Protein backbone atom coordinates (compact mmCIF):
# COMPACT_ATOMS: atom_id res chain seq x y z
CA UNK A 1 0.00 0.00 0.00
CA UNK A 2 1.36 3.44 -0.81
CA UNK A 3 1.00 6.63 1.15
CA UNK A 4 -0.94 9.47 -0.43
CA UNK A 5 0.17 12.90 0.65
CA UNK A 6 -1.23 15.26 -1.97
CA UNK A 7 -4.74 15.93 -0.60
CA UNK A 8 -5.09 18.40 2.31
CA UNK A 9 -5.63 16.74 5.68
CA UNK A 10 -7.92 19.39 7.20
CA UNK A 11 -9.26 22.80 6.22
CA UNK A 12 -6.58 25.12 7.65
CA UNK A 13 -7.98 28.45 8.88
CA UNK A 14 -6.34 31.51 7.33
CA UNK A 15 -5.05 32.91 10.65
CA UNK A 16 -3.11 29.73 11.29
CA UNK A 17 -0.82 30.34 8.32
CA UNK A 18 -0.24 34.03 9.18
CA UNK A 19 2.57 34.98 11.56
CA UNK A 20 1.61 36.57 14.90
CA UNK A 21 3.22 39.73 16.23
CA UNK A 22 5.82 38.41 18.61
CA UNK A 23 7.95 40.04 21.27
CA UNK A 24 9.02 43.64 20.96
CA UNK A 25 12.32 43.65 19.06
CA UNK A 26 13.79 46.00 21.67
CA UNK A 27 14.24 43.01 23.99
CA UNK A 28 12.98 42.55 27.57
CA UNK A 29 11.98 45.94 28.91
CA UNK A 30 8.59 45.03 30.33
CA UNK A 31 7.61 45.08 34.01
CA UNK A 32 8.92 42.20 36.06
CA UNK A 33 6.84 40.50 38.72
CA UNK A 34 7.52 37.88 41.30
CA UNK A 35 5.91 34.42 41.05
CA UNK A 36 2.35 34.03 42.29
CA UNK A 37 1.15 32.13 45.35
CA UNK A 38 0.21 29.38 42.92
CA UNK A 39 3.76 29.04 41.59
CA UNK A 40 5.10 28.99 45.14
CA UNK A 41 2.63 26.27 46.18
CA UNK A 42 3.44 24.11 43.16
CA UNK A 43 7.17 24.64 43.75
CA UNK A 44 6.60 23.61 47.37
CA UNK A 45 4.92 20.40 46.20
CA UNK A 46 7.85 19.69 43.88
CA UNK A 47 10.15 20.32 46.84
CA UNK A 48 8.29 17.69 48.88
CA UNK A 49 8.91 15.14 46.13
CA UNK A 50 12.59 16.10 45.81
CA UNK A 51 13.07 15.92 49.57
CA UNK A 52 11.44 12.48 49.75
CA UNK A 53 13.74 11.22 47.00
CA UNK A 54 16.80 12.69 48.75
CA UNK A 55 15.70 11.14 52.04
CA UNK A 56 15.51 7.77 50.30
CA UNK A 57 19.10 8.21 49.09
CA UNK A 58 20.22 8.75 52.68
CA UNK A 59 18.34 5.63 53.76
CA UNK A 60 20.43 3.64 51.26
CA UNK A 61 23.79 4.85 52.64
CA UNK A 62 25.82 2.25 54.47
CA UNK A 63 25.87 4.11 57.78
CA UNK A 64 25.32 2.94 61.34
CA UNK A 65 21.57 3.46 61.66
CA UNK A 66 20.91 2.16 58.14
CA UNK A 67 22.36 -1.22 59.21
CA UNK A 68 20.05 -1.61 62.19
CA UNK A 69 16.95 -3.72 61.62
CA UNK A 70 14.00 -1.27 61.31
CA UNK A 71 11.89 -2.75 64.13
CA UNK A 72 14.81 -2.57 66.56
CA UNK A 73 15.58 0.95 65.37
CA UNK A 74 11.98 2.12 65.84
CA UNK A 75 11.77 0.66 69.35
CA UNK A 76 15.20 1.96 70.47
CA UNK A 77 14.62 5.47 69.13
CA UNK A 78 11.18 5.48 70.78
CA UNK A 79 12.92 4.54 74.05
CA UNK A 80 15.35 7.45 73.59
CA UNK A 81 12.33 9.72 73.02
CA UNK A 82 10.93 8.58 76.38
CA UNK A 83 14.32 9.28 78.02
CA UNK A 84 14.24 12.77 76.44
CA UNK A 85 10.77 13.39 77.82
CA UNK A 86 11.98 12.43 81.33
CA UNK A 87 14.97 14.83 81.36
CA UNK A 88 14.60 17.80 83.69
CA UNK A 89 17.87 19.65 83.01
CA UNK A 90 19.16 21.37 79.89
CA UNK A 91 22.61 19.65 80.09
CA UNK A 92 20.84 16.26 80.29
CA UNK A 93 18.86 17.12 77.15
CA UNK A 94 21.99 18.45 75.43
CA UNK A 95 23.65 15.11 76.14
CA UNK A 96 20.85 13.29 74.27
CA UNK A 97 21.11 15.87 71.48
CA UNK A 98 24.84 15.21 71.27
CA UNK A 99 24.06 11.48 70.94
CA UNK A 100 21.63 12.30 68.10
CA UNK A 101 24.29 14.39 66.34
CA UNK A 102 26.85 11.61 66.73
CA UNK A 103 24.37 9.07 65.34
CA UNK A 104 23.67 11.38 62.39
CA UNK A 105 27.38 11.67 61.63
CA UNK A 106 27.89 7.91 61.98
CA UNK A 107 24.93 7.36 59.64
CA UNK A 108 26.52 9.56 56.95
CA UNK A 109 23.87 12.26 57.22
CA UNK A 110 25.40 15.69 56.46
CA UNK A 111 25.41 17.24 59.95
CA UNK A 112 24.77 20.78 58.62
CA UNK A 113 21.67 19.57 56.76
CA UNK A 114 20.52 17.61 59.83
CA UNK A 115 20.91 20.59 62.21
CA UNK A 116 19.24 23.00 59.76
CA UNK A 117 16.32 20.66 59.18
CA UNK A 118 15.55 20.63 62.90
CA UNK A 119 16.47 24.16 64.01
CA UNK A 120 14.83 25.98 61.09
CA UNK A 121 11.36 25.21 62.45
CA UNK A 122 11.96 25.07 66.22
CA UNK A 123 12.10 28.90 66.70
CA UNK A 124 8.93 29.31 64.64
CA UNK A 125 6.79 26.67 66.31
CA UNK A 126 8.17 26.24 69.83
CA UNK A 127 10.02 29.55 70.30
CA UNK A 128 6.91 31.67 69.78
CA UNK A 129 4.83 29.43 72.06
CA UNK A 130 7.30 29.61 74.96
CA UNK A 131 8.16 33.31 74.57
CA UNK A 132 5.48 34.54 77.06
CA UNK A 133 6.74 31.99 79.62
CA UNK A 134 10.04 33.90 79.87
CA UNK A 135 8.29 37.03 81.19
CA UNK A 136 7.98 37.80 84.90
CA UNK A 137 4.17 38.01 84.62
CA UNK A 138 4.02 34.30 83.73
CA UNK A 139 7.14 32.99 85.48
CA UNK A 140 8.03 35.19 88.47
CA UNK A 141 11.67 35.34 89.53
CA UNK A 142 14.90 37.22 89.13
CA UNK A 143 14.52 39.71 86.26
CA UNK A 144 17.61 39.65 84.04
CA UNK A 145 16.24 41.83 81.22
CA UNK A 146 13.86 44.61 82.40
CA UNK A 147 11.24 45.61 79.82
CA UNK A 148 9.33 48.28 81.79
CA UNK A 149 6.61 48.35 84.41
CA UNK A 150 2.90 47.54 84.49
CA UNK A 151 0.56 48.61 87.36
CA UNK A 152 3.64 49.34 89.47
CA UNK A 153 5.23 45.94 88.89
CA UNK A 154 8.54 45.47 87.08
CA UNK A 155 8.06 43.44 83.91
CA UNK A 156 10.96 41.68 82.24
CA UNK A 157 12.55 38.41 81.24
CA UNK A 158 13.34 36.25 84.27
CA UNK A 159 16.16 33.75 84.65
CA UNK A 160 13.63 31.12 85.79
CA UNK A 161 11.51 31.82 82.69
CA UNK A 162 14.56 31.55 80.43
CA UNK A 163 15.54 28.24 82.04
CA UNK A 164 12.01 26.84 81.56
CA UNK A 165 11.85 28.03 77.93
CA UNK A 166 15.33 26.65 77.25
CA UNK A 167 14.26 23.31 78.68
CA UNK A 168 11.20 23.13 76.42
CA UNK A 169 13.02 24.28 73.28
CA UNK A 170 15.90 21.84 73.86
CA UNK A 171 13.48 19.01 74.59
CA UNK A 172 11.49 19.65 71.40
CA UNK A 173 14.65 20.01 69.29
CA UNK A 174 16.10 16.77 70.68
CA UNK A 175 12.85 14.86 70.19
CA UNK A 176 12.44 16.16 66.62
CA UNK A 177 16.09 15.25 65.91
CA UNK A 178 15.49 11.65 66.98
CA UNK A 179 12.38 11.37 64.77
CA UNK A 180 14.23 12.96 61.82
CA UNK A 181 17.07 10.47 62.38
CA UNK A 182 14.60 7.60 62.13
CA UNK A 183 12.88 8.89 58.98
CA UNK A 184 16.12 9.83 57.21
CA UNK A 185 17.83 6.51 57.81
CA UNK A 186 14.86 4.23 57.13
CA UNK A 187 13.23 3.97 53.73
CA UNK A 188 9.46 4.38 53.75
CA UNK A 189 8.95 0.73 52.83
CA UNK A 190 11.11 -0.51 55.71
CA UNK A 191 9.41 1.86 58.11
CA UNK A 192 6.08 0.41 57.05
CA UNK A 193 7.40 -3.14 57.47
CA UNK A 194 8.54 -2.18 60.97
CA UNK A 195 5.09 -0.79 61.78
CA UNK A 196 3.52 -4.04 60.57
CA UNK A 197 5.85 -6.04 62.79
CA UNK A 198 4.96 -3.80 65.74
CA UNK A 199 1.35 -4.96 65.55
CA UNK A 200 -0.06 -1.93 63.71
CA UNK A 201 -3.03 -3.39 61.74
CA UNK A 202 -1.98 -4.52 58.24
CA UNK A 203 -4.90 -2.81 56.54
CA UNK A 204 -3.93 0.51 58.16
CA UNK A 205 -0.33 0.11 57.01
CA UNK A 206 -1.47 -0.83 53.49
CA UNK A 207 -3.71 2.25 53.22
CA UNK A 208 -0.83 4.41 54.48
CA UNK A 209 1.56 2.88 51.95
CA UNK A 210 -0.81 3.35 49.03
CA UNK A 211 -1.71 6.90 50.03
CA UNK A 212 1.99 7.81 50.10
CA UNK A 213 2.68 6.04 46.79
CA UNK A 214 -0.17 7.69 44.86
CA UNK A 215 0.39 11.08 46.45
CA UNK A 216 3.55 11.31 44.32
CA UNK A 217 1.63 10.38 41.19
CA UNK A 218 -1.09 12.95 41.82
CA UNK A 219 1.47 15.63 42.73
CA UNK A 220 3.09 14.89 39.36
CA UNK A 221 -0.29 15.41 37.66
CA UNK A 222 -0.77 18.78 39.38
CA UNK A 223 2.72 19.87 38.32
CA UNK A 224 2.08 18.78 34.71
CA UNK A 225 -1.19 20.73 34.62
CA UNK A 226 0.53 23.81 36.00
CA UNK A 227 3.41 23.58 33.53
CA UNK A 228 0.92 23.14 30.66
CA UNK A 229 -0.93 26.25 31.85
CA UNK A 230 2.29 28.24 32.23
CA UNK A 231 3.37 27.26 28.71
CA UNK A 232 0.18 28.80 27.33
CA UNK A 233 0.08 31.86 29.58
CA UNK A 234 1.21 34.89 27.58
CA UNK A 235 -0.03 37.77 29.72
CA UNK A 236 0.26 37.74 33.50
CA UNK A 237 -2.53 35.65 35.02
CA UNK A 238 -4.48 37.48 37.74
CA UNK A 239 -5.34 36.06 41.17
CA UNK A 240 -8.87 35.22 40.03
CA UNK A 241 -7.47 33.16 37.17
CA UNK A 242 -5.18 31.46 39.67
CA UNK A 243 -8.09 30.57 41.92
CA UNK A 244 -10.03 29.23 38.95
CA UNK A 245 -7.04 27.07 37.98
CA UNK A 246 -6.76 25.68 41.52
CA UNK A 247 -10.49 24.82 41.54
CA UNK A 248 -10.33 23.23 38.07
CA UNK A 249 -7.17 21.25 38.79
CA UNK A 250 -8.53 20.08 42.17
CA UNK A 251 -11.57 18.74 40.30
CA UNK A 252 -9.40 17.11 37.64
CA UNK A 253 -7.12 15.51 40.24
CA UNK A 254 -10.13 14.25 42.17
CA UNK A 255 -11.47 12.67 38.98
CA UNK A 256 -8.07 11.12 38.21
CA UNK A 257 -7.74 9.82 41.76
CA UNK A 258 -11.18 8.18 41.57
CA UNK A 259 -10.41 6.47 38.25
CA UNK A 260 -7.00 5.41 39.53
CA UNK A 261 -8.50 4.01 42.74
CA UNK A 262 -10.88 1.90 40.64
CA UNK A 263 -8.04 0.60 38.47
CA UNK A 264 -5.77 -0.14 41.43
CA UNK A 265 -8.54 -2.12 43.07
CA UNK A 266 -9.12 -4.06 39.85
CA UNK A 267 -5.37 -4.73 39.56
CA UNK A 268 -5.38 -6.08 43.12
CA UNK A 269 -8.45 -8.25 42.53
CA UNK A 270 -6.91 -9.56 39.29
CA UNK A 271 -4.01 -10.88 41.36
CA UNK A 272 -6.22 -12.66 43.86
CA UNK A 273 -6.89 -9.94 46.45
CA UNK A 274 -9.95 -10.78 48.55
CA UNK A 275 -9.57 -8.37 51.45
CA UNK A 276 -6.64 -10.01 53.20
CA UNK A 277 -3.00 -9.05 52.85
CA UNK A 278 0.06 -11.24 53.31
CA UNK A 279 3.58 -9.89 53.28
CA UNK A 280 7.08 -11.26 52.85
CA UNK A 281 9.15 -12.10 55.90
CA UNK A 282 11.21 -9.31 57.42
CA UNK A 283 14.86 -9.80 58.42
CA UNK A 284 15.47 -11.16 61.92
CA UNK A 285 17.59 -9.08 64.33
CA UNK A 286 21.18 -10.36 64.74
CA UNK A 287 24.40 -9.53 66.58
CA UNK A 288 24.55 -5.96 65.22
CA UNK A 289 21.15 -5.26 66.75
CA UNK A 290 22.19 -6.84 70.07
CA UNK A 291 25.28 -4.60 70.29
CA UNK A 292 23.14 -1.62 69.30
CA UNK A 293 20.51 -2.32 72.01
CA UNK A 294 23.19 -2.76 74.71
CA UNK A 295 24.92 0.50 73.65
CA UNK A 296 21.67 2.43 73.61
CA UNK A 297 20.72 1.08 77.04
CA UNK A 298 24.10 2.22 78.43
CA UNK A 299 23.60 5.65 76.81
CA UNK A 300 20.05 5.97 78.19
CA UNK A 301 21.11 4.97 81.73
CA UNK A 302 24.13 7.37 81.64
CA UNK A 303 21.98 10.27 80.47
CA UNK A 304 19.37 9.61 83.15
CA UNK A 305 22.20 9.40 85.76
CA UNK A 306 23.69 12.71 84.54
CA UNK A 307 20.29 14.39 84.72
CA UNK A 308 19.72 13.20 88.30
CA UNK A 309 23.20 14.34 89.36
CA UNK A 310 22.59 17.83 87.95
CA UNK A 311 19.16 18.36 89.58
Amino acid at each position, binding site marked *: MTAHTSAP*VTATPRWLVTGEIGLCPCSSIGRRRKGSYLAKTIDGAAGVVRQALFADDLAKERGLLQRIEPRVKVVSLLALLVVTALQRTVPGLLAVYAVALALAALSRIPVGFFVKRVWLFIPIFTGIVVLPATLSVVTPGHVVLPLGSCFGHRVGVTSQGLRGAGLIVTRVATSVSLVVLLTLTTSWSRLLAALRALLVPRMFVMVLAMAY*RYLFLLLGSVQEMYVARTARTVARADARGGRRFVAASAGAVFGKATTLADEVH*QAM*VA*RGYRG*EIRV*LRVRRPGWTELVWVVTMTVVAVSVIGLDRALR
Partner: protein
Amino acid sequence: MPCADEIILSVHDLVHRYLDRYTALDGVSLDIGRGEKVALLGANGCGKSTLLKVLDGLLFADTGTYEAFGEKVTEDALEDEQFSRAFRSRVGFVFQNADAMVFSPTVREEIAFGPLTMGLDTDVVEQRVVDTLAMLDIAALADRAPYQLSGGQKKRVAIASVLVMNPEVLLFDEPTAALDPRTQQWLIELMVELHHAGKTIVLATHDLDTLEVIADRCAVMSEEHQIVRTGTVGEVLDDRRLLLDVNLIHERSPLRRA
Protein backbone atom coordinates in the same frame (compact mmCIF):
# COMPACT_ATOMS: atom_id res chain seq x y z
CA MET B 1 -11.07 -20.57 14.60
CA PRO B 2 -9.67 -22.92 17.25
CA CYS B 3 -10.97 -26.50 17.59
CA ALA B 4 -13.93 -26.72 19.99
CA ASP B 5 -12.19 -29.12 22.39
CA GLU B 6 -9.28 -26.70 22.81
CA ILE B 7 -11.36 -23.64 23.69
CA ILE B 8 -10.43 -22.28 27.11
CA LEU B 9 -12.11 -18.87 27.09
CA SER B 10 -15.44 -18.25 25.42
CA VAL B 11 -17.74 -15.23 25.43
CA HIS B 12 -21.14 -15.48 23.80
CA ASP B 13 -23.45 -12.63 22.78
CA LEU B 14 -21.98 -10.44 25.49
CA VAL B 15 -23.41 -7.01 26.26
CA HIS B 16 -21.82 -4.62 28.76
CA ARG B 17 -22.88 -1.05 29.47
CA TYR B 18 -21.20 1.44 31.79
CA LEU B 19 -23.65 3.12 34.18
CA ASP B 20 -26.42 1.21 32.35
CA ARG B 21 -26.18 3.82 29.59
CA TYR B 22 -22.91 3.78 27.70
CA THR B 23 -22.53 0.64 25.63
CA ALA B 24 -19.01 -0.79 25.68
CA LEU B 25 -19.73 -4.26 24.26
CA ASP B 26 -22.71 -5.02 22.10
CA GLY B 27 -23.34 -8.70 21.38
CA VAL B 28 -19.71 -9.82 21.35
CA SER B 29 -18.90 -13.49 20.79
CA LEU B 30 -15.34 -14.84 20.77
CA ASP B 31 -13.59 -18.15 21.46
CA ILE B 32 -9.95 -18.35 22.51
CA GLY B 33 -8.12 -21.65 22.03
CA ARG B 34 -5.36 -23.01 24.25
CA GLY B 35 -1.93 -21.72 23.18
CA GLU B 36 -3.31 -19.09 20.79
CA LYS B 37 -2.02 -15.56 20.29
CA VAL B 38 -5.11 -13.44 19.67
CA ALA B 39 -5.12 -9.70 19.02
CA LEU B 40 -8.19 -7.57 19.66
CA LEU B 41 -8.02 -4.80 17.10
CA GLY B 42 -10.05 -1.64 17.07
CA ALA B 43 -10.04 2.13 17.31
CA ASN B 44 -9.91 3.95 20.64
CA GLY B 45 -13.06 3.49 22.70
CA CYS B 46 -14.38 0.49 20.75
CA GLY B 47 -14.44 -1.78 23.82
CA LYS B 48 -11.15 -3.74 23.64
CA SER B 49 -10.13 -2.96 27.21
CA THR B 50 -13.63 -3.69 28.48
CA LEU B 51 -13.56 -7.09 26.77
CA LEU B 52 -10.18 -7.87 28.37
CA LYS B 53 -11.57 -6.90 31.78
CA VAL B 54 -14.53 -9.20 31.21
CA LEU B 55 -12.12 -12.01 30.24
CA ASP B 56 -10.28 -11.37 33.53
CA GLY B 57 -13.50 -11.44 35.56
CA LEU B 58 -13.19 -7.81 36.61
CA LEU B 59 -16.31 -6.64 34.76
CA PHE B 60 -19.38 -8.75 34.12
CA ALA B 61 -21.85 -9.09 31.30
CA ASP B 62 -25.24 -7.37 31.47
CA THR B 63 -26.47 -10.11 29.16
CA GLY B 64 -24.65 -12.99 27.47
CA THR B 65 -22.25 -15.53 28.94
CA TYR B 66 -18.55 -15.97 29.64
CA GLU B 67 -16.97 -19.37 30.22
CA ALA B 68 -13.37 -20.00 31.23
CA PHE B 69 -11.89 -23.50 31.34
CA GLY B 70 -15.41 -24.91 30.96
CA GLU B 71 -16.87 -23.01 33.93
CA LYS B 72 -19.22 -20.04 33.82
CA VAL B 73 -17.53 -16.90 35.14
CA THR B 74 -19.98 -14.66 36.94
CA GLU B 75 -19.77 -12.24 39.86
CA ASP B 76 -21.46 -14.89 41.97
CA ALA B 77 -19.04 -17.65 40.89
CA LEU B 78 -16.03 -15.47 41.78
CA GLU B 79 -17.42 -15.01 45.29
CA ASP B 80 -16.48 -18.67 45.78
CA GLU B 81 -12.98 -18.68 47.27
CA GLN B 82 -11.81 -21.87 45.59
CA PHE B 83 -13.10 -20.88 42.15
CA SER B 84 -11.73 -17.36 42.50
CA ARG B 85 -8.27 -18.64 43.51
CA ALA B 86 -8.18 -21.12 40.62
CA PHE B 87 -9.38 -18.57 38.06
CA ARG B 88 -7.09 -15.75 39.24
CA SER B 89 -4.04 -18.01 39.21
CA ARG B 90 -4.81 -19.21 35.66
CA VAL B 91 -5.56 -15.83 34.06
CA GLY B 92 -3.16 -12.89 34.39
CA PHE B 93 -3.84 -9.35 33.25
CA VAL B 94 -1.27 -6.67 32.42
CA PHE B 95 -3.06 -3.31 32.53
CA GLN B 96 -2.28 -0.51 30.10
CA ASN B 97 -1.62 1.84 33.00
CA ALA B 98 1.34 0.28 34.82
CA ASP B 99 0.93 2.81 37.65
CA ALA B 100 -2.32 1.10 38.63
CA MET B 101 -0.49 -2.22 39.00
CA VAL B 102 2.48 -1.01 41.00
CA PHE B 103 0.95 -0.10 44.35
CA SER B 104 3.26 -1.77 46.90
CA PRO B 105 6.07 0.07 48.73
CA THR B 106 8.84 -1.82 46.88
CA VAL B 107 9.26 -3.76 43.64
CA ARG B 108 10.01 -6.97 45.59
CA GLU B 109 6.78 -6.69 47.59
CA GLU B 110 4.86 -5.84 44.43
CA ILE B 111 5.97 -9.02 42.71
CA ALA B 112 5.27 -11.06 45.84
CA PHE B 113 1.74 -9.66 46.23
CA GLY B 114 -0.03 -12.07 43.84
CA PRO B 115 1.55 -15.38 44.94
CA LEU B 116 1.14 -14.41 48.60
CA THR B 117 -2.57 -13.72 48.17
CA MET B 118 -2.80 -17.08 46.36
CA GLY B 119 -1.64 -18.64 49.61
CA LEU B 120 1.73 -19.95 48.39
CA ASP B 121 4.37 -20.70 51.00
CA THR B 122 6.65 -17.73 51.78
CA ASP B 123 9.81 -19.68 50.81
CA VAL B 124 8.31 -20.57 47.42
CA VAL B 125 7.21 -16.96 46.91
CA GLU B 126 10.66 -15.61 47.76
CA GLN B 127 12.29 -17.98 45.27
CA ARG B 128 9.75 -17.13 42.57
CA VAL B 129 10.31 -13.41 43.13
CA VAL B 130 14.08 -13.86 42.74
CA ASP B 131 13.59 -15.92 39.55
CA THR B 132 11.14 -13.42 38.04
CA LEU B 133 13.38 -10.46 38.87
CA ALA B 134 16.25 -12.23 37.11
CA MET B 135 14.12 -13.26 34.12
CA LEU B 136 12.94 -9.72 33.46
CA ASP B 137 16.36 -8.24 34.26
CA ILE B 138 15.07 -6.03 37.08
CA ALA B 139 16.95 -7.51 40.05
CA ALA B 140 18.64 -4.13 40.59
CA LEU B 141 15.23 -2.53 41.12
CA ALA B 142 14.09 -5.02 43.79
CA ASP B 143 14.21 -2.60 46.73
CA ARG B 144 13.25 0.53 44.81
CA ALA B 145 9.99 2.41 45.42
CA PRO B 146 7.53 2.68 42.48
CA TYR B 147 7.86 6.48 42.23
CA GLN B 148 11.57 6.01 41.49
CA LEU B 149 10.90 3.93 38.36
CA SER B 150 10.66 5.04 34.74
CA GLY B 151 7.66 4.13 32.57
CA GLY B 152 9.49 1.18 30.99
CA GLN B 153 10.68 -0.11 34.37
CA LYS B 154 7.15 0.11 35.77
CA LYS B 155 5.89 -1.91 32.80
CA ARG B 156 8.51 -4.59 33.50
CA VAL B 157 7.50 -4.70 37.16
CA ALA B 158 3.82 -4.93 36.20
CA ILE B 159 4.57 -7.86 33.86
CA ALA B 160 6.74 -9.52 36.51
CA SER B 161 3.94 -9.19 39.08
CA VAL B 162 1.67 -11.18 36.75
CA LEU B 163 4.23 -13.70 35.43
CA VAL B 164 5.25 -14.68 38.96
CA MET B 165 1.80 -16.28 39.35
CA ASN B 166 2.52 -18.49 36.33
CA PRO B 167 -0.88 -18.01 34.65
CA GLU B 168 -1.96 -20.11 31.66
CA VAL B 169 -3.56 -17.12 29.95
CA LEU B 170 -1.97 -13.69 29.71
CA LEU B 171 -4.10 -10.68 28.84
CA PHE B 172 -2.23 -7.55 27.72
CA ASP B 173 -3.97 -4.20 27.31
CA GLU B 174 -2.09 -2.03 24.77
CA PRO B 175 1.23 -3.60 25.79
CA THR B 176 3.53 -1.44 23.69
CA ALA B 177 1.74 1.88 24.17
CA ALA B 178 3.90 4.76 25.48
CA LEU B 179 7.07 2.66 25.59
CA ASP B 180 10.37 3.55 23.92
CA PRO B 181 11.32 1.44 20.86
CA ARG B 182 13.86 -0.61 22.82
CA THR B 183 11.36 -1.57 25.53
CA GLN B 184 8.72 -2.21 22.86
CA GLN B 185 11.02 -4.69 21.12
CA TRP B 186 11.92 -6.33 24.42
CA LEU B 187 8.23 -6.76 25.25
CA ILE B 188 7.38 -8.17 21.81
CA GLU B 189 10.18 -10.73 22.14
CA LEU B 190 9.00 -11.59 25.67
CA MET B 191 5.46 -12.22 24.44
CA VAL B 192 6.76 -14.49 21.67
CA GLU B 193 8.91 -16.34 24.21
CA LEU B 194 5.96 -16.77 26.58
CA HIS B 195 3.88 -18.09 23.71
CA HIS B 196 6.58 -20.64 22.90
CA ALA B 197 6.49 -21.63 26.58
CA GLY B 198 2.84 -22.61 26.06
CA LYS B 199 1.02 -19.52 27.32
CA THR B 200 -2.19 -18.35 25.69
CA ILE B 201 -1.93 -14.65 24.86
CA VAL B 202 -4.76 -12.20 24.27
CA LEU B 203 -3.84 -8.59 23.65
CA ALA B 204 -5.65 -5.39 22.80
CA THR B 205 -3.76 -3.21 20.37
CA HIS B 206 -3.95 -0.86 17.42
CA ASP B 207 -0.30 -1.27 16.52
CA LEU B 208 -0.53 -2.90 13.10
CA ASP B 209 3.22 -2.89 12.47
CA THR B 210 4.03 -5.61 15.00
CA LEU B 211 0.85 -7.61 14.57
CA GLU B 212 2.35 -10.46 12.55
CA VAL B 213 4.86 -11.18 15.30
CA ILE B 214 2.62 -10.90 18.33
CA ALA B 215 -0.57 -12.53 17.05
CA ASP B 216 -1.70 -15.34 14.83
CA ARG B 217 -5.38 -14.46 14.91
CA CYS B 218 -7.21 -11.15 15.10
CA ALA B 219 -10.68 -10.11 16.24
CA VAL B 220 -11.57 -6.73 14.78
CA MET B 221 -13.94 -4.54 16.78
CA SER B 222 -15.99 -1.77 15.26
CA GLU B 223 -16.84 1.58 16.79
CA GLU B 224 -20.31 0.11 17.35
CA HIS B 225 -18.62 -2.14 19.98
CA GLN B 226 -19.10 -5.35 18.04
CA ILE B 227 -16.66 -7.92 16.67
CA VAL B 228 -17.04 -7.53 12.91
CA ARG B 229 -14.36 -9.94 11.77
CA THR B 230 -12.08 -12.67 13.04
CA GLY B 231 -9.31 -14.12 10.93
CA THR B 232 -5.59 -14.58 10.54
CA VAL B 233 -3.34 -11.52 10.69
CA GLY B 234 -2.76 -11.76 6.95
CA GLU B 235 -6.47 -11.88 6.15
CA VAL B 236 -7.25 -8.88 8.32
CA LEU B 237 -4.33 -6.71 7.19
CA ASP B 238 -5.14 -7.41 3.55
CA ASP B 239 -8.70 -6.17 3.99
CA ARG B 240 -8.09 -2.42 3.72
CA ARG B 241 -11.82 -1.69 3.39
CA LEU B 242 -12.46 -3.37 6.76
CA LEU B 243 -9.64 -1.44 8.48
CA LEU B 244 -11.02 1.80 7.07
CA ASP B 245 -14.57 0.97 8.14
CA VAL B 246 -13.54 0.35 11.76
CA ASN B 247 -11.43 3.55 11.71
CA LEU B 248 -8.18 1.72 12.40
CA ILE B 249 -6.43 3.35 9.47
CA HIS B 250 -6.77 6.60 7.58
CA GLU B 251 -7.33 6.78 3.84
CA ARG B 252 -3.74 7.91 3.45
CA SER B 253 -2.28 5.51 6.05
CA PRO B 254 0.54 3.42 4.64
CA LEU B 255 0.62 -0.27 5.56
CA ARG B 256 3.84 -2.22 5.54
CA ARG B 257 2.27 -5.18 3.74
CA ALA B 258 2.54 -4.91 -0.03
